[in-house]
């Protein structure tokens, strides 16, 4: 087994398992700890508030959109591109079809995937610049914040290079773009449960818990 086989075999399994099990554990841990130390959430539990708040914040119907229209809209677009491309890009779907699971679903046009990739990369640069230039954001930024932006952008950047052969002639990188792309995706998956990227699941729990109290008190949720 050479390194490539390892990357598309065992390492792929590990990345997905760490991502899925890690995220699941984060959720389970939340419910377990909260059942001991945040009992108020369950005492005053309300599906109405939980669903309303998730709806309002998953979609742009919340206070932040009015207050910071540019940043919030940009962030929404970013997340749409982030989720749509890896799942509905034809190149990835082919791999699922060829796998032992033989899953198949329709894809988005490749040109749309291209555009979404470019837009996402542009937004990554916008986030990076904002983090560097804005004094408040810079003050609270940690190394992790900068690194995770790079980690998130890399699969998209390398994916673009791969599908367009942009760096094909650039020696080592050109020869191994597929491997680099795969590794960059695996890196992101591995980091999700251990970093703020876990907001991918924890958002729902945090939002819901807060809305249970805020809704009851008549605050905006």
């Amino acid at each position, binding site marked *: 087994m050479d390194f490539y086989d390892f990357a598309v075999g065992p390492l792929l399994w590990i990345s997905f398992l760490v991502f899925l099990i890690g995220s699941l554990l984060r959720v389970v*841990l*939340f*419910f*377990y*700890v*909260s059942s*001991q*130390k*945040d009992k108020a*959430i369950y005492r005053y539990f309300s599906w109405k508030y939980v669903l309303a*708040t998730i709806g309002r*914040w998953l979609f742009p119907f*919340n*206070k*932040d959109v009015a*207050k*910071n229209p540019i*940043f*919030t809209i940009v962030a929404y677009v970013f997340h749409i591109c982030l989720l749509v491309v890896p799942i509905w890009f034809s190149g990835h779907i082919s791999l699922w079809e060829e796998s032992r699971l033989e899953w198949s679903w329709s894809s988005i046009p490749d040109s749309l995937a291209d555009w979404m990739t470019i837009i996402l990369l542009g937004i990554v640069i916008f986030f990076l610049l904002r*983090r560097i230039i*804005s*004094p*408040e*954001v*810079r*003050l*609270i*930024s*940690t190394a992790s*914040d900068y690194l995770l932006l790079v980690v998130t952008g890399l699969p998209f950047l390398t994916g673009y290079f791969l599908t367009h052969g942009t760096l094909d002639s650039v020696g080592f990188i050109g020869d191994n773009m597929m491997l680099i792309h795969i590794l960059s995706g695996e890196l992101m998956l591995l980091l999700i449960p251990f970093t*703020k990227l*876990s*907001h991918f699941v*924890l*958002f729902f*729990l*945090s*939002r*819901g*818990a*807060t*809305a249970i*109290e*805020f809704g009851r008190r008549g*605050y*905006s949720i």
Partner: protein
Amino acid sequence: MSEEKQLATEEHLESRIMEFLKPRMGARFKTWMKICAHCGLCSDTCHFYLSNGKEPKMIPSYKIRFLKDILRKKGKVDKPYLQEVYKTIYHECNMCRRCSLYCPFGIDIAMMISLLRGLLTSVGMVPDGLAKAVANYQESGNQMAITKEDWIETLEWCEEETAEELAGLKIPIDKKGAKIMYTVNAREPKFYPQDIMEMAKIFHVAGEDWTFPSEKGWDATNLAMFVNDAQTAKSIAENTFKRAEELGVKQIAITE
């Protein structure tokens, strides 16, 4: 309890801090510290930030940095460190909770400030005025250390004076089955009895069926919440509800 509120010696600080934090580090606090994306959207929701020329150190996400730091250091912090914490959580935040409303993840930053206040309270670092008020609540059930006798006497002469203006005006005390139990800011009997008299006039003219309780529970304030002395805060609120239940009233009205 007030006698025990001496500043813990440095050797005991570490264990007192972790003793306080461990049982309170619930799922929400842990999650919030993990998922804060450092997006900075909380910045211009904070009036301290805005009124201090948009000073970055005033942004809510920055102000609660101590919580994560103290946990990472496992409570190994010294008094000068805690004094820095004190400065931020008492002079740079009043827990208005506006930041919590605007955080996309629903991180309740104000509640984390409150937790830090509770932490400092547990090691005896409390603003003098609030320490005094809390001690008063524990002793007499109200912020101003007004005795039951003084309370009743004040209400009696308020009634006398006001009845001269509006014949038949009464300030009912411990009237069972009244519709409304009214509670006031403890400053009113102490410094502003005219506020009580004004309300009595309004109740009288409106023909409202109301009463004051004679025992602890008539103080509508709860300053113990400001220092996150949860136990005292709870007993203050409990007193009011107990009186309401004993008197069998339908509603509790508060002065503010």
